[in-house]
């Protein structure tokens, strides 16, 4: 009998392994060592192959501009014969984790995206020096290695966000978007639009999503960014430095909590607590909400919804005093992998994108982004890019300090506080204290 049970056990585990493989499920974690390790082991063999040997490979972190980049790469190949393959990651994919496994597998791309200091710390010393490229003199937004002072990151765009409004609805409601610069103005506007919901065809005033599993980046990074640097000069890091020490300015956070509470109150409740990015965007883009807490990156998605209304970006002005600036910065940079044998080809491609009209047309016109390059004569056409460009031109921008917060803090700490507040599990005072304790805990454990 013993033999039989052993046989059944063996047969069972074998078929389990079979189906686990079939389903591509997570069942393969049995070797607790995990997958990345086995890739590390194969590193020494170094026998990975890429699609085409001469192509330079770019890992792009903005899946929204995947098509446009591929079009530009094709044009570049027609002109110079150099093939460029674009690999876009995004929509919830962990990019730096993916890059690490590429690195471990000896399959590192020639160019890859970094999001700021946290990402760059992983690749210090492994990025090629780009100081001699033509684009460097043409922009202030390049990413510089703090120690060596050399430019290592190529800025492909400037991005900004705040509260994006549907200008047509605001006009019908008789609200001038330029007056939305403080808490009271927003409160009055929300109340007014809320009262006119039926005649404007709205289901809610705002479209906000605060679910912590998938939308933590919107709340824990973007919205929180306004607490850190909203209304401040670009080089003012007061609240950011405090946060890194685990401290929170109670007065500012209290005002901020009031404003978030106001946003939540006038939001579509389903979208608020369980909505995804698509739900949030659809609600606003279909004209069922007047405001959305996203930035100019939704521009390329607007044609999918046949958006015909005018729109613009207003600052998320949570303070009693006027706040006229929006948060705008270079969201991420492209680095060239220093150990690649195609560094020069990469540099040529980057210069092509930055300094030629064709390259700029791709980034600015087709992808709906804002050029960080002074010499660029291509003006943006998409509505939010135009709106943001006016802030950039007038110098009314604050930095993206949140991008340099400890890695994972939005997903594992701050985003949770936003969600609990949205569900009503905690009130405004608890929001302030929990924000304080969550940040303090996270920073202490880092």
């Amino acid at each position: 009998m013993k033999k039989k049970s052993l046989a059944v056990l063996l047969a069972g585990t074998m078929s389990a392994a079979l189906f686990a493989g079939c389903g591509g499920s997570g069942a393969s974690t049995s070797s607790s060592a995990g997958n990345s390790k086995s890739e590390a082991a194969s590193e020494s063999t170094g026998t990975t192959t890429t699609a085409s040997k001469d192509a330079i490979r770019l890992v792009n972190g903005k899946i929204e501009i995947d098509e446009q980049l591929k079009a530009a790469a094709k044009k570049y190949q027609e002109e110079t014969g150099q093939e460029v393959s674009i690999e876009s990651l995004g929509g919830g994919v962990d990019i730096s984790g993916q890059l690490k496994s590429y690195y471990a597998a000896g399959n590192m791309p020639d160019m890859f995206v970094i999001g700021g200091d946290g990402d760059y710390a992983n690749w210090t010393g492994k990025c090629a020096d780009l100081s001699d490229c033509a684009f460097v003199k043409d922009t202030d937004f390049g990413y510089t290695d703090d120690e060596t002072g050399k430019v290592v990151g190529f800025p492909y765009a400037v991005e900004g966000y705040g509260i994006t409004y549907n200008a047509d609805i605001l006009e019908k409601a008789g609200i001038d978007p330029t007056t939305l610069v403080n808490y009271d103005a927003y409160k009055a506007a929300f109340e007014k639009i809320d009262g006119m919901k039926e005649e404007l065809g709205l289901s809610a005033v705002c479209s906000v999503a605060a679910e912590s599993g998938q939308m933590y980046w919107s709340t824990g990074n973007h919205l929180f960014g306004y607490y850190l640097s909203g209304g401040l000069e670009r080089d003012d890091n007061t609240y950011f430095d405090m946060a890194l020490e685990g401290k929170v300015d109670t007065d500012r956070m209290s005002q901020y909590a009031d404003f978030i509470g106001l946003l939540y109150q006038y939001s579509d409740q389903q979208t608020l607590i369980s909505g995804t990015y698509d739900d949030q965007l659809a609600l606003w883009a279909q004209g069922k909400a007047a405001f959305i807490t996203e930035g100019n990156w939704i521009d390329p998605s607007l044609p999918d919804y046949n958006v015909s209304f005018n729109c613009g970006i207003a600052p998320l002005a949570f303070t009693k005093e006027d706040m006229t600036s929006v948060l705008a910065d270079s969201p991420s940079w492209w680095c060239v992998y220093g150990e690649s044998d195609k560094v020069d080809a990469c540099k040529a491609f980057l210069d092509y994108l930055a300094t030629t009209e064709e390259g700029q047309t791709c980034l600015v016109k087709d992808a709906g982004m804002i050029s960080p390059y002074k010499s660029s004569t291509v003006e943006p056409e998409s509505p939010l890019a135009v709106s943001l460009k006016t802030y950039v031109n007038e110098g009314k921008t604050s930095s993206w300090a949140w991008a340099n917060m400890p890695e994972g803090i939005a997903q594992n700490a701050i985003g949770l506080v936003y969600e609990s507040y949205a569900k009503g599990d905690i009130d405004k005072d608890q929001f302030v204290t929990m924000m304080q304790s969550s940040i303090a805990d996270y920073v202490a454990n880092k």
Partner: protein
Amino acid sequence: MNTAAKKSLSLGMLVVGAVLMVAALILDFMGTKGAMRGYLLIAGALLIIVGLLKLPNKKHTKIVNGLFLFPMVFTFGVTVMIPFILGIIYSFTDWNGVSVTQFVGLENYITMFRQLDFVYSFILTLLFTIVNIVSVNIAGFCLALLCTSKIKGKNFFRAAYFLPNLIGGIVLGYVWQFIFNKVFTTVFVGSNSMLTDANLAILAILFVNTWQYAGYIMMIYVTGLQSVPSDVLEASNVDGASPLTTLFKIKIPMIANTFTVCIFLTLVNSFKLFDLNLSITNGAPSRVLGDKIIQSTEFLALNIYKTAIGKNDYALGQTKAVVFFVILAIVSLTQVSISKKKEVEL
């Protein structure tokens, strides 16, 4: 050729082979590019094998056995053993996924148990595992009884119940997420999604996992039930045993070994639950515990993943994985040894 010459020839081959292999490895560690080192390594290995075979002694069968085993042993070593050992080493360092700068001793192991989220995930996973074993096995066993009874179309039922298991966990998770978030809230107008409540969200994962896995477990029970000898069943029928008595006194004791297998499989499966967890909730919603907020549906595997990938703390994640392995090994071996005592010897 005499024995001495044979011997010296094969010894020569062994030495040359060893030198070639060592040279290839040194070339590789020095980071030389080029494919030469690969050929050197293979040539060296072949020389050693031939040299061993030519050696004039009587252990040829052993060498041949070893040769046949080699592909499997090598693959197992490269894909399981080496990563496993490396993983244990990494857990004592400050590895960040790219490089190691220093050894930190037991620091990672101490930090881990100081973190509320890890302790919570640990308890949650244990509780979930217990409930899930019960629910999956009861559901699977009932389905198996149904599929071995005399109802019409039982082959269709068998296939239908098994089907969810063939869909990948990630796809299935997103489909169910849609159902929980959109379909249920539309059908029950005004209700909030189950996935926004900390307790209901765990229940949702439990439900989907049972739904997915019960069909698979059912198949094993069906095999077990079919192996019960029909003469024993007939004899009990003649003695006037009711179907219920037959089930509890004959069928269940006779297939106790199947229970061992099924409970073992569900235990390991629920302990390692990852794909459904990631796709249905990804740790959300939040749960307020005193003055702290944590993710309410973050099971151990997801906690490990998020520590390494999300927080970019690869060493700590690896440490958790080592502990995860130890716990899983202890729990499943204990379960198998207990269940085995209950099995009937025919």
